[in-house]
């Protein structure tokens, strides 16, 4: 936005502030959790915590992928459609008798291709990211529906479908997947030079270019990562709901972007982190979980979600201004 004072939770910079910022969103999450624990007995049951971790997991992974793109000052509207589409692909492959490992690899490869196509559109065809990813959003849902003929494909592979329900060391496997994505994502974004390049491209692509950064490759990288994360979530979703269905995950792109922004990412690029979007996703999941447990009318739930988003981002804004 043009009025907003751009703030930085940049790559290394202001380390203290960046961690404090993370901590404060953690603080918010903890406050939410404590309040919910007081308000309802069910909240702090192991069962519910498992649920919560499962529920936030998919958005969290999408949000991390989305963050890479947003840091380059782009946007990826297609992630929800990619999730639905890849759920169809993996179900289709499994139904066709393709071995599980191959089906998974092929599905992720399709994620890579979609991301590469987005970057191609942006870099070579000069299309705005908003447009190219909106177009694939529309088309991918169409292709997925065409494959399933508008219905769903059941997945009979039990190994695959029980995975999302399983626990490991008492923690839901879906949440482990968040960790599996987040750790390399953290290393990539905050510790490797490619992460720095993402920030540089988002901040001033011309300056990055004149400094020898391969801007096009960086853009490819960002979009491929986002789409691959989405394809990965497509696998998880297929595992969780046991079917492939192209209309699933509708609107998840907005949730992913919202998680990312709540987690401190700037839509103007060059500001963002890996832990922020994760926290953002789990804050949103907590709001929904809590509203369900408190038996809030689902209409009120929407109203409250909207208000809480405003309040959370506002306080975060205030705090960050204060920190300067």
């Amino acid at each position, binding site marked *: 936005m043009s009025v907003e004072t751009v703030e930085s939770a940049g790559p*290394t910079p202001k380390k203290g502030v960046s961690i404090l910022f993370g901590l404060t969103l953690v603080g918010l999450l903890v406050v939410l959790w404590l309040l919910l624990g007081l308000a309802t007995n069910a909240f702090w049951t192991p069962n519910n915590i498992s649920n919560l971790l499962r529920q936030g997991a998919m958005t969290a992974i999408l949000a991390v992928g989305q963050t890479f793109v947003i840091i380059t000052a782009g946007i990826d509207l297609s992630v929800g459609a990619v999730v639905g589409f890849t759920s169809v692909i993996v179900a289709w492959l499994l139904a066709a008798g393709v071995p599980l490992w191959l089906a998974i690899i092929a599905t992720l490869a399709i994620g890579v291709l979609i991301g590469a196509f987005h970057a191609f559109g942006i870099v070579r065809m000069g299309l705005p990211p908003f447009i190219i990813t909106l177009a694939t959003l529309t088309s991918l849902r169409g292709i997925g529906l065409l494959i399933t003929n508008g219905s769903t494909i059941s997945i009979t592979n039990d190994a695959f479908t029980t995975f999302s329900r399983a626990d490991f060391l008492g923690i839901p496997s879906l949440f482990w997947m968040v960790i599996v994505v987040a750790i390399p994502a953290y290393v990539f974004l905050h510790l*490797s030079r490619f992460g720095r390049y993402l920030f540089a491209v988002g901040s001033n692509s011309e300056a990055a270019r004149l400094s020898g950064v391969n801007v096009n490759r960086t853009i490819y990288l960002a979009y491929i990562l986002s789409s691959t994360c989405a394809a990965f979530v497509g696998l998880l979703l297929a595992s969780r709901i046991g079917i492939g269905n192209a209309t699933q995950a509708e609107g998840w792109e907005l949730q992913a972007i919202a998680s990312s922004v709540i987690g401190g990412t700037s839509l103007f690029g060059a500001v963002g982190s890996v832990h922020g979007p994760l926290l953002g996703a789990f804050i949103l999941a907590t709001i929904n979980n809590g509203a369900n447990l408190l038996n809030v009318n689902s209409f009120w739930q929407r109203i409250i979600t909207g208000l809480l988003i405003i309040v959370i981002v506002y306080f975060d804004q205030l705090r960050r201004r204060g920190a300067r």
Partner: protein
Amino acid sequence: MIGLQEVSHRHDEQVRAAGGRPVPKGAPILELRSLQKNYGAVEALKPATMTFLSGEIHAIVGENGAGKSTLIKLLTGVIARSAGEIRWCGETVDLATPNEAIARGINAVHQEVVLCPHLSVAANMFLGDEMNRRGLMRKRAMTGAAQGVLDDLGFNLPANAELGSLTIGQQQLVATARAAMRGTQFLIFDEPTAYLTRQESAQLFRLIRRLQGEGVTIVYISHRLEEVFELADRVSVLRDGTHVGTRAISETNEAELITLMINRTIEQIYHKERFEQGEMIVETRGLSGPGFRDISLSVRAGEIVGLYGLIGAGRSEFALGLYGRNPVSAGEIFWQGRKVAIGNERKAMDLGIALAPESRRDQGLCLNLPIGVNINLPVFKRLTRGLTINRAQEASNAERQIRDLNIKTPSRRVLASAMSGGNQQKIVIGRWLSHGAKLFIFDEPTVGVDVGTKAEIYRLFARLLEKGAGIILISSYLPEVYELADRLHVFRQGRLVASHDYRAASHEEVLAQAINA
């Protein structure tokens, strides 16, 4: 054609209507009492008490980061002061918003051009003060009036061009024309000549004198001391946010000002050492591309090749072509005797070319990233160990450049946008010093850099040459290229029109060739 006179006249009346009480010439018009500005812990301006007299040209000088721009921003309502008082025409004023400053007739041409790149020149000149008839804008009248003002000032610029399509120098002229047209009582120029050639500077000086003649009070900030002596009536010096003194121009000299500014003396600004010229590093033959045609020149190890010309002469375009940023349409490049094609920036860097581009804002810096990242941008590959960056080395590398170039910052984690103009320039230079190269192209490297640092940069050039590098120095500041270049090429309208050896031609001769007089 509507001239400056008529347009500004219209505004003059507005200004008076807005309540500016006339002040006799020579009486205090603007007084600062213990004016102060802190950015968090940074004391950008320590309590300063100064007086500006009506109708004078008052220069302000000081090192990079001394607080000059901060002072200007306080006077124009851009930022809020931390403490102190401002008195305008004898009464205490708030100056809390740009609007208030404008309403009182205080205007500024800021150091970094702040205009709207997507709007036309005319739209920018009239922004916030459009001519209207029955609620609608009189676009044609405004374009005409703007063109009239530009022509009247002798600026050869089309009023209907999109601002973003102009070079920064030209944008600077637009900002100047705009401020002049607004009909002010108090006009501040923050390093207006940074991107101007002598030709344009001369035009600007005429404009300033003319405004002074009309009773306008002028504040003039510059790192070029000879300009200060040419123009100003009085000069104030800032050092580290402190006002260390004000002198009548007739009672001081360059040496005294420099001592006041940097608290030591410099015997020679244009530090020049001549080295044995070594092997041929690069040679272009008939190189053509967007903005330049048929350029043949060469650079040897130990040699500074200067490129001089007016704004838009094609020097920067030539540099970008050589660096692989822009496609070359014809001609050949020989690198150390071998014919090469430089298809992209990476290729140029791998060969050993470094480019410090002319616009630090658009091409040089990632403004909302930390200084450290900006300095290390080209060398992250080198700093990578395995998968990740060696953070200790990343830190030490950045710290070293900050120290060596004397970049004024509390930490390498500060965002580049929080740096003063000159310090930003040093970051861009520091980046390439840390990267290293065989051929350094410096495009306007000392724009906005203070005298002390300038001397350091020139000394640095000598160190680079000593190590066997070659330098292409592009500058619109004739004394600089003139004093430093072993070979000086003059560009005009995209062509190389003349070449001279070190100090072989006079200033006047070079200038005449540049403007085809």
